[in-house]
C-alpha cells in the first residue's frame, strides 16, 4: 500500500515536471535556448513512478528525452535551465544542452541522444555493482525505437546472462519521430521480445504513476534480491512535436483524435483528480503547489539567464581526464 504522503510526493513530481516543461516550451520561442529539445509532456508518470522506487544509491541513465528522467531523479533544476541556456553554470557547463544531462550527486549518470547509446552503459553500471557485491540498481530509460537497434539486444542478452541488477524502462509512445511503431517493427509485444531474451518482463500503463511505481518496485526488489534484470514496457504518449516546443498535429502523421484521446488519459490530471477525490489532496494544496513550483521555475530561469556564458577559449580543456 502507498501512503498519502507518498502519493502527494508523486503528484508534486508530476506537476513539477509538467510545469517546468510547459514553461520551457513557452520560452523556447524566445530563441535563447539554442539547442534541440525533446519534451516529455504527457509521459511524466514513467520517470516519476520509476524514480519513486529507487534509493539514493541507485543510478539512472536517460536518453534524448531526458528532462523528466533527470528531474524525477532529483537533478538540479537551476543547473538544467542553465544548461539549456548554454551557461557555464549548466550541469555540463554548457557543453551538453538538453540532449546531454548529468547530475552524479543524485545518481543521474548521464543522458545522450544516440538512440540506444546509454542502454549498455546501464548494464555496465550494473556489472560494476554486481562485482562490488552491492545491493544497488541501475536503471535506463529508452523509447520504443530502441528495440530496433542491435545494441539493445546485446545489452539484454548480457544482463540476462549474468542476472545483473538493471532495470530496462521502455517508454513506448508509439512513435519514433514521425514514424509509427507498426512501420518499424512487426506486430508483436515489445516486452515479450525482452522476455524471450530471458529477462523478467512486464508491461503496464505508463500514464498511471502508481502502476508504474508498483512495477518499478517489483523490479527493484528483484534486482536487489539477486534475481536479475527486469524489462518494463510502459505505454504512454508524447503530446508535442518530437523535437521542439510546439504541437504538430497539423502535420497529419498521427491519426485524428489520437492526441485528444491520450490527453484525456493525462497522467497528471488523472492523478490530481484521483487524489482530490480520495481527499489526499485539497484544491488549496494544488493551488499552492502550482504557485510554489511556479516560483521555483521563475527563480531557475533567473539563475540560468543570468548565468555566465562559457568562454570559447576554454573549450579545449577537460578533453582528457
Amino acid at each position, binding site marked *: 500500500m502507498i501512503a498519502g504522503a507518498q502519493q502527494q510526493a508523486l503528484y508534486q513530481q508530476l506537476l513539477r515536471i509538467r510545469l517546468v516543461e510547459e514553461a520551457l516550451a513557452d520560452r*523556447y*520561442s524566445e*530563441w535563447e535556448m*539554442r*539547442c*534541440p*529539445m525533446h519534451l516529455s509532456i504527457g509521459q511524466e508518470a514513467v520517470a516519476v513512478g520509476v524514480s519513486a522506487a529507487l534509493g539514493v544509491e541507485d543510478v539512472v541513465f536517460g536518453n534524448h528525452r531526458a528532462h523528466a528522467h533527470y528531474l524525477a531523479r532529483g537533478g538540479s533544476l537551476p543547473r538544467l535551465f542553465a544548461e539549456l541556456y*548554454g*551557461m557555464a553554470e*549548466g550541469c*555540463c*557547463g*554548457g*557543453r*551538453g*544542452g*538538453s*540532449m*546531454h544531462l548529468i547530475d552524479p550527486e543524485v545518481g543521474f549518470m548521464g543522458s*545522450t*541522444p*544516440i*538512440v*540506444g*547509446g546509454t542502454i549498455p552503459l546501464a548494464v555496465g553500471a550494473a556489472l560494476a555493482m554486481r562485482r562490488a557485491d552491492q545491493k544497488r540498481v541501475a536503471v535506463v530509460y529508452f523509447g520504443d*525505437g*530502441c528495440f*530496433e*537497434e*542491435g*545494441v539493445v539486444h546485446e545489452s539484454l542478452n548480457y544482463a540476462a546472462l549474468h542476472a545483473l541488477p538493471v532495470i530496462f524502462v521502455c517508454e513506448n509512445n508509439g512513435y*519514433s*519521430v*514521425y*514514424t509509427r511503431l507498426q*512501420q*518499424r*517493427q512487426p506486430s508483436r509485444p515489445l516486452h515479450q521480445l525482452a522476455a524471450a531474451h530471458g529477462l523478467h518482463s512486464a508491461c503496464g500503463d505508463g500514464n498511471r504513476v502508481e502502476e508504474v511505481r508498483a512495477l518499478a518496485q517489483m523490479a527493484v526488489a528483484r534486482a536487489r534480491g539477486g534475481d536479475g534484470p527486469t524489462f518494463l514496457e510502459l505505454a504512454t504518449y508524447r503530446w508535442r*512535436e518530437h*523535437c*521542439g*516546443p510546439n504541437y504538430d498535429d497539423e*502535420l*497529419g*502523421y498521427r491519426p485524428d483524435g489520437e492526441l485528444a484521446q491520450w490527453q484525456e488519459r493525462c497522467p497528471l490530471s488523472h492523478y490530481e483528480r484521483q487524489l482530490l477525490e480520495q481527499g489526499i489532496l485539497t484544491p488549496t494544496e494544488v493551488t499552492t503547489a502550482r504557485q510554489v513550483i511556479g516560483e521555483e521555475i521563475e527563480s531557475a530561469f533567473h539563475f540560468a539567464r543570468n548565468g555566465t*556564458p*562559457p*568562454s*570559447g*577559449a576554454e*573549450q*579545449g580543456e577537460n*578533453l582528457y581526464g
Partner: protein
Amino acid sequence: MVSAAEQRMLSFAEALHEAFDLALAMDDRVFIMGEGVPDPRAIFATTAGLAEKYGADRVRDMPLAENGMTGICIGAALMGERPILIHQRLDFALLSCDQLINNGAKWHYMFNGAASVPLVIRLIVGRGWGQGPQHSQSLHALFAHIPGLKVVMPATAYEAKGMMLAAIADNNPVIFIEHRWLHPLQDQVPSAYYTVSLEGGALLQRGEGVTVVAFSYMVIEALRAARALEEVGIQIEVVNMRGVSPLRAEVVLQSVKRTGRLIVADIGATSFGVAAELVATVAEHCFDSLLAPPQRVANPDYPLPTSPAAAAGYYPGAVDIATRVLTLLGQESRIEQMQQRLQREGPEDVPQSDFHGPF
C-alpha cells in the same frame, strides 16, 4: 553543355531532390531508404513528395538499425539494386562501420570482381543550434582512409545534383557527405540529367601566391575570403576538393606548383584529418615549388560544445583563411582590416538569422 534557358536557381537541397526524382524515374533499381525519408519533414525536404510519387516501396522509411540496414542495402545492391541510404546525421553512421568497412568497401575486391555494391550513403553533417558533441561530427576522414569506399563532399547545388547522379550511377559504395549549412545555398542547376565526376577537385579561381584547397562548406568560406582579398587586390587560387577519396590531387598539385603556397580548409577535426593527406601529398609532390610551410584551417581537436557561447570560435571560417593568406604573403599589417571586413553579422550558430532549429 546545357543552354542558359534551361538553367534555374535551385538550392542544394532542391538540387538533391531533383536528382532523386530523376534517378527514381529513370531506373527502377534505384530506391531510397532512411529514417524519416517519407515523413513530413522528408530529410530537410530533400525527399519531399517522392514517396507519394514513387510509392512506399521505392521511397522507404526504415527502423533505427544503422548497421543492419546498411547490410540490407548492401545485400540488395548485390542483387543489382541501387539503394540510397540516408542518415540524418553522420554521427549515426558510426553504428554501421562494420557493414560499410568490412563488407561494403571490400566486397568487390575480395571476391575478385565477382559482384559489386552500387550503394550511395548520404550523411548529413550537423552544425549550429546546439548540435553538440554527438550531432555535429564530420568524420569523412574515417571513410576516406578505407580503400574501396568513394567519398565525395559537394559544395554547390550544381555539384549536389551532378555528383548524386554520378554516385547513383557508380558501381561502388559512395559516401556522400552534405554539410547541413549548404542545404539552403542556391546555384544554377540544369533541369536535365547530368553528372559531375566523383573524383578530383575543381579549380574555382586562378590567382597568385596562395592556393586554398577547401572541402564542403569550407568552399563557401574560402570563396568569401577570396572575394574579400580580391577587394584589397589579392587574387588567390581556390580549389573545391569535392572528390575526397580516392584522392586525385592533380588540380591541387598543379595549382601549388603555380602559387607555391598551400592552405587546406576542412570541416573536420584537424589532426589525422583529410587536410593532413592533402598537405602530405603536396609536400611529397610539390616539394620544390613550396615557398612556405603548408597550413591547415580546420576544427580544433575536441568535440563541439553545445552552448553557442562555448562553441564560438570552434568553427574556422573566411576570417581564418584570409588571415592565413595574408600571413603567408607577409602582409600581416592588413590582417586587422581584413578581419573587420569579414566579420559575420548575426548569431554564429545559425546559417541564416531566421533559422531556429529545433534540430
